[in-house]
């Protein structure tokens, strides 16, 4: 997928990709970062000094595939779109190779297999030029500054929200919520060994411990069960006594 980091700046003229031919069949990639397969195609057409309305499809397809192979050999992850374009080119190429049976009736309907691609390239080129215009405008605009804060400005942390902010904020709340649930699950996974350890520590520190208070520290049913087993275990193995002062009263764990 398209995962380009935001660049701090770029120069439209410098950013042009360049494949240098080192020897007869070795290409060298000096700089190549295309915004998409259409960019690469436009570049290749220019490189071949071909007419955009009469693209030498076989040659351009070969060059295109060469470039893709090159990118692969450089371990550049190729966006799926580059491969889709490769398939399109190969399809056009094979259509062009088909012997043409020109008859009076079909001639008019025969569409050049390159036509859709050419249309797309021209359209794309227009927007590329438009984006350069935007780039230039924003450069000028960045040299202009508004006034500083004045006393009447409220400078509390307020946001001017759009619908998408609403969604983003909502998702943040939901994920915050999920994290909380996550924490509970983590707490559930206290092992029996850990529980015994913590129980022992408490009894040895305080000499005696209210069973009710201990159980109240548990957050989930599973923890409670673990705690209960821990109590049984500690009474069995350690010198700890269970004492109850009144019927249904609190039970005290006491170190003997």
């Amino acid at each position, binding site marked *: 997928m398209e995962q380009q980091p935001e*660049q701090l700046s770029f120069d439209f003229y410098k950013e042009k990709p360049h494949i240098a031919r080192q020897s007869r069949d070795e290409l060298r990639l000096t700089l190549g970062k295309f915004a998409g397969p259409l960019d690469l195609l436009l570049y290749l057409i220019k490189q071949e000094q071909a007419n955009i309305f009469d693209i030498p499809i076989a040659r351009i397809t070969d060059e295109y595939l060469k470039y893709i192979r090159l990118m692969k050999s450089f371990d550049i992850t190729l966006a799926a779109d580059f491969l889709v374009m490769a398939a399109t080119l190969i399809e056009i190429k094979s259509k062009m190779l088909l012997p043409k049976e020109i008859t009076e009736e079909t001639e008019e309907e025969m569409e050049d297999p390159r036509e859709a691609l050419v249309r797309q390239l021209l359209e*794309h080129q227009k927007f590329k030029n438009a984006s350069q215009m935007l780039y230039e*405008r924003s450069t000028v605009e960045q040299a202009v500054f508004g006034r500083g804060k004045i006393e009447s400005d409220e400078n509390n942390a307020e946001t001017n929200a759009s619908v998408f902010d609403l969604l983003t904020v909502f998702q943040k709340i939901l994920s915050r919520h999920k994290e909380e649930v996550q924490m509970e699950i983590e707490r559930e996974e206290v092992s029996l060994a850990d529980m015994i350890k913590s129980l022992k520590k408490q009894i040895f520190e305080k000499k005696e411990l209210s069973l009710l208070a201990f159980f109240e520290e548990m957050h989930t049913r599973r923890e409670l069960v673990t705690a209960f087993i821990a109590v049984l275990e500690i009474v069995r193995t350690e010198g700890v006594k269970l004492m109850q002062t009144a019927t249904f009263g609190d039970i005290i764990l006491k170190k003997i």
Partner: protein
Amino acid sequence: MEIEEKQPRSIAEIISIVEALVFVADEPITVKTLSDVLEEDRETIEAAVEELKQEYEDRTGGLQLREIAGGWQISTRTEYHEEVRKYLKTRPNAKLSLAALETLAVIAYKQPVTVPEILEIRGVQSASAIKTLLDKKLITAKGRKETVGRPMMYGTSKDFLLQFGLKDLSELPSIEDFEDLVQ
């Protein structure tokens, strides 16, 4: 109690008040707002703004009055950006990536436009570029297209006009103008 009769304002006074209001406004202030606050008709305000603009131009001081994003704003002149930047210690804003700029160009000219339509023109998936543009508030959602799947449509925002120094969308050069440049 005395009831004070309001004297009609002189044009010089109106210009001065317009200047004061443009100055205090956080955002470009519209002729309509000015007209509402001053209780003067649109034409009077428009004439006052134009004269004020001329005055700023004739002074060639450090400031300019300009029309942007549908309103009027006072800002520094581009000539002095170096010194202003030095004082504010700001670097030029992080610029948009090529992919984001291209996507923005498509959205600016084809709005309202859906993600599949952008893909069609760019020939490349534009999801992350769209996300960047949304984060930077350069584009906003513009409702859904009444077609299969009701995809979200996108258009440019007011911040887009501000950041690219446009009065309004009609100030964008026509996309056909870029055709001559092909080849």
